[in-house]
């Protein structure tokens, strides 16, 4: 038999040092007390162990399992389902560029590309100084502020490639960075602790950035009789999709693929026009 590595961790995972464990046990007790059933504490507890080590480690999984009387397999199954749990060491600042359709179209794709080039890292990779982890994220419920960049899950609205480059430069240089909506940035670990349900006690954190962003007030201002922006152009007719431009190549060659795929494998089975028995055939035909 040859050894086959399945990428599985060595079990059992080491425990936390005694003082860390005692501190986390007290926190876990507080989380568990919020719920009628202890298992409900699992998601916040995974945020808690992430606040200790910056990602969910085998030690953290073991800790959650022991506290909740679950198996590590059960805990791992949950931890791997949710995208906010990191499974490898990452940076102090998680910079997430929204590349869901609306933000992507409004410039999110350009921003993500600019940051990859500027930082020299790809998706879900960390800069060498350990400061910034870059990733693309899905819709973050701020489409009226598109394109949106999130840093440690605080809002940076209406970004451009230029503003995003400056943002990551400031983060790497240790300069104070203020979100458009949210509190002065804390580290990823500190953010994870808030997510575990322990309120941010920093003075001014709740008040920071004011009541609502500009876009949130657009309708209210109109309703109060304040005028809309100067750019009054009603939708007008004319021009079809063809007016947007010509095909990129006219020679019939396949052009470079569009920068649309990030995650999934690119290779596909070839479509077979000679075999109409594929899914094209409707039921009953």
């Amino acid at each position: 038999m040859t050894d086959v590595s399945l990428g599985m961790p060595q079990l059992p995972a080491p425990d936390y040092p005694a003082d860390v464990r005692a501190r986390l046990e007290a926190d876990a007790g507080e989380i568990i007390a919020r719920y009628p059933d202890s298992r409900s504490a699992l998601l916040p507890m995974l945020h808690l162990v992430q606040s200790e080590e910056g990602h969910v480690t085998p030690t953290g999984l073991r800790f959650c399992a022991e506290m909740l009387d679950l198996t590590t397999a059960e805990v791992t199954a949950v931890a791997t389902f949710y995208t906010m749990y990191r499974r490898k060491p990452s940076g102090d600042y998680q910079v997430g560029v929204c590349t869901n359709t609306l933000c992507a179209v409004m410039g999110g794709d350009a921003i993500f590309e600019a940051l990859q080039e500027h930082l020299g890292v790809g998706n879900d990779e960390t800069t060498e100084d350990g400061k910034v982890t870059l990733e693309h994220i899905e819709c973050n419920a701020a489409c009226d502020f598109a394109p949106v960049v999130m840093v440690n899950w605080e809002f940076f609205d209406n970004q451009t490639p230029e503003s995003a480059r400056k943002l990551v430069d400031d983060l790497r240089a240790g300069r104070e960075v203020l979100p458009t909506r949210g509190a002065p940035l804390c580290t990823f670990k500190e953010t994870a602790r808030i997510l575990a349900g322990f309120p941010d006690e920093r003075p001014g954190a709740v008040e920071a950035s004011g009541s609502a962003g500009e876009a949130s007030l657009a309708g209210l201002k109109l309703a109060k009789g304040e005028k809309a922006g100067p750019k009054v152009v009603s939708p007008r007719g004319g021009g079809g999709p063809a007016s947007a431009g010509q095909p990129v190549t006219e020679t019939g060659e396949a052009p470079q693929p569009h920068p649309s795929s990030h995650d999934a494998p690119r290779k596909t089975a070839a479509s077979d026009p000679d075999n109409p028995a594929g899914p094209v055939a409707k039921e009953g035909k």
Partner: protein
Amino acid sequence: MTAESAEKLLAPVLSAFWDDPTSWTLDTYRAHEGYEGLRKALAMKPDDVIAYVKESGLRGRGGAGFPTGMKWQFIPQGDGKPHYLVVNADESEPGTCKDIPLLFANPHALIEGIVIACHAIRSNHAFIYLRGEVVPVLRRLHAAVRQAYDAGYLGKDVLGSGLDVDITVHAGAGAYICGEETALLDSLEGRRGQPRLRPPFPAVAGLYACPTVVNNVESIASVPAIMNRGKEWFRTMGSEKSPGFTLYSLSGHVASPGQYEAPLGITLRQLLEMSGGMRPGHRLKFWTPGGSSTPLLTDEHLDVPLDYEGVGAAGSMLGTKALQCFDETTCVVRAVTRWTEFYAHESCGKCTPCREGTYWLVQLMRDIEAGKAAMSDLDKIADIADNINGKAFCALGDGAASPIFSSLKYFREEYEQHVTGRGCPFDPAKSTLWADDRTAHLEVNA
């Protein structure tokens, strides 16, 4: 259009004082008649509160439009089990951006609504399941819940009524599927967020197998105003079947993106005319009435009343009123490809049609976008979408099929151009926020 007509057409209720510099605080909320609806509700019997909300005609604002009062009525009474209220604050539907600004600027509207709902359904424990990726909102929810406890609106014997209500704020961990109510319940129980088979419905066996109401943030936050100002007042807005006010979220290639609170039934044309229209020099090409899971509409549909019946009659759904507007610079194939990648990424994997179907749709859509597809692939994506739609375990699958069907219906020619032209005829640089801004033009490097 003048600002005067905007004043007539809009109806800020939940957003009425978001411009106050401390709008999220208890003091500001009380200065705007906050917690007055609760006082009135506590003076009524629980069943009367349910009947009142039912008669107001309030319908769920999370997408499906189910009558809120009826949902509350389904909770069995005298069954000896604990009852739970779970607020769905997992706002993740692409394009949807109403609950997050609402909770950021006015979290007490939700808390007051929760206490009223708990009184009505005889619950002593409510959960707010907030998506995790919005820490600024989580901060304000933590603060608002603490303020409400200190002021006696939460905890033991609320305002001397004998009602006990506790709220647990629970942050999710990143999974679109948890916006589906039964997946949300599994997630709240500490499991992978996968939908449950129904029946039993949550009203009978929800959280911890106990009777549970799951309501959207905006639905619950609308209840205090109804209790305070009356169901008749509520019914003066909107239509018979879709009464009341709601938040419309305008985004994309519009001059003034943002939140517009208005009576149900306003049209996109009215919203665009009052807010400055599309960005200068461009025209509307396609839009979603309520997030990416609602079939696309075009400029033919500018006068469709944006209520449950009106949008339904136009072949789409009101959904979350997330009006994502795209102009003629946008490639519909690119837009649909990206949404399809989203559904494939977020498919929980429980059922085969959705898990496999979204995977193959992504492969085909990428090929079409890149000009590598055959014409028969257009029929193939339609067929795969048909094999997902209505055949998946939950509505995520239907949502994945919607952009495919609707874009093929209105823009098949554009798909064909990608195939015959062996590539995308659009320049993505022209769609960006800064595309028409000469000073920033050098930044465009898409």
